[in-house]
């Protein structure tokens, strides 16, 4: 280069220059509130009622520029993912979903922005700044910690988010009033592991938005035909029932020693049951049932695409 600034690392790769901006740490987002849910199927009780549960936490940070958030787990056994990021003025809100219903041990969110978006108090007058050729846009500012990474790659969760073997389906002609769930909708065993020897469960944090979603259902249709006694008029009477469980998932991630895991956590769930029978004999027809929530869309996994993840050491920014 004829002018400007360029720093290469020990591998000869450019890490600072005057054309591309470095990300710098601007602080941790503030944990404002959270809500919990879905430790089981609403309105259903019986076999396989248990779900992983979730806690959705809200975090905010005010800054110019668009922050790149990193999740630093406090409880590394929980699955976490940022499912939504929005802005009002310069205040950014992150919705972070964690597996499990405990409101303790929520993760911390470390935020990074471009060098040029850092607000530096007037009293901080020492350090090194690298500008672009325009002489005003910063690419590097030593007064804030630049992002240094320890690993990364592309993450892809498995198609099937449910612990039971195979995807749940539809059974017809089961016994009338069948309403016992035979599929495990939890997700703890369903993940793709990416090996990375730099990952530990003390300081490691990651950046990887949750984009994959899935909805799956188990449906059991019951039926019986009963004979009507001759003294009630004879013939037959048909009975139908439907039991329908559904779960919506969002992709979430977990750090284990030596591994980055891409998996799933239940986001919503519902149960629907109905039964009816036709008129016959001395009895008129009838129906009944109950429902909880609406299935967002038909069974499928969407947005299952290679998603870039970045691994870093949070202790540099504490």
């Amino acid at each position, binding site marked *: 280069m004829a002018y400007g600034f360029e*720093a*290469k*690392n*020990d*591998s000869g*790769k*450019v*890490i*600072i*220059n005057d*054309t*591309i*901006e*470095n*990300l710098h740490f601007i602080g941790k987002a503030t944990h404002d509130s959270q809500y919990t849910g879905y430790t089981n199927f609403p309105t259903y009780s019986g076999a396989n009622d248990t779900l992983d549960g979730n806690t959705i936490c809200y975090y905010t940070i005010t800054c110019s*520029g*668009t922050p*790149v958030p990193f999740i630093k787990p406090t409880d590394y056994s929980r699955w976490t993912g*940022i*499912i*939504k*990021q*929005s802005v009002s003025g310069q205040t950014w809100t992150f*919705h972070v979903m964690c597996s499990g219903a405990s409101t303790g041990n929520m993760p911390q969110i470390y935020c990074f922005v*471009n060098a040029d978006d850092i607000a530096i108090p007037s009293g901080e007058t020492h*350090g*090194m700044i690298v500008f672009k050729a325009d002489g005003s846009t910063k*690419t590097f500012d*030593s007064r804030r*910690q*630049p*992002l*240094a*990474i*320890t690993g*990364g790659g*592309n993450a892809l969760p498995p198609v099937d988010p449910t612990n039971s073997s195979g995807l749940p389906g539809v059974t017809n002609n089961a016994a009338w009033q069948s309403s016992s769930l035979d599929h495990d909708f939890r997700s703890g065993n369903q993940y793709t592991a990416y090996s990375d020897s730099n990952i530990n469960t003390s300081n490691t944090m990651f*950046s*990887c*938005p949750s*984009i994959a*979603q899935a909805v799956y259902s188990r449906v059991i249709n019951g039926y019986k035909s009963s004979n009507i006694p001759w003294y009630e008029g004879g013939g037959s009477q048909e009975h139908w029932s439907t039991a329908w469980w559904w779960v*919506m998932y969002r992709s979430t991630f977990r750090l284990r020693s030596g591994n980055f895991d891409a998996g799933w956590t239940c*986001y*919503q769930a519902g149960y629907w049951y109905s039964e009816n029978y036709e008129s016959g004999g001395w009895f008129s027809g009838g129906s009944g049932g109950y429902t909880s929530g*609406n299935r*967002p*869309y038909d069974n499928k996994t*969407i*947005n299952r*695409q290679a*998603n*870039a993840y*970045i691994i870093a050491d949070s202790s*540099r920014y504490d």
Partner: protein
Amino acid sequence: MSYGLSVFKADGSLGFSTADVTWQTVAQFTVAANATVVNTYSEIAGMTVIAQRQLVNVPPAAQEDYVPNVTVSNNSQTITVAPQSGLSSSQCIIHVLAQDT
């Protein structure tokens, strides 16, 4: 270290140095629902490029939200963001990051 660049924090501890590895940020932009955006950055020619996608304002009812596809082409210089084939896409934040190769 005997050569290179070290940047120290105000407390004197090492903050960043030429022993480190990083991703530099090329661009950040928000793509509107169903929009197609093509941006070219000549300064990242030949570099390794990744793009993170973050959905914005996903409705609480969690409807079917599709992220747009991101493709990197033209010797890593061109970033194309477009809806998945045959699907509408939701509003999405795109972070384009580059690393020297």
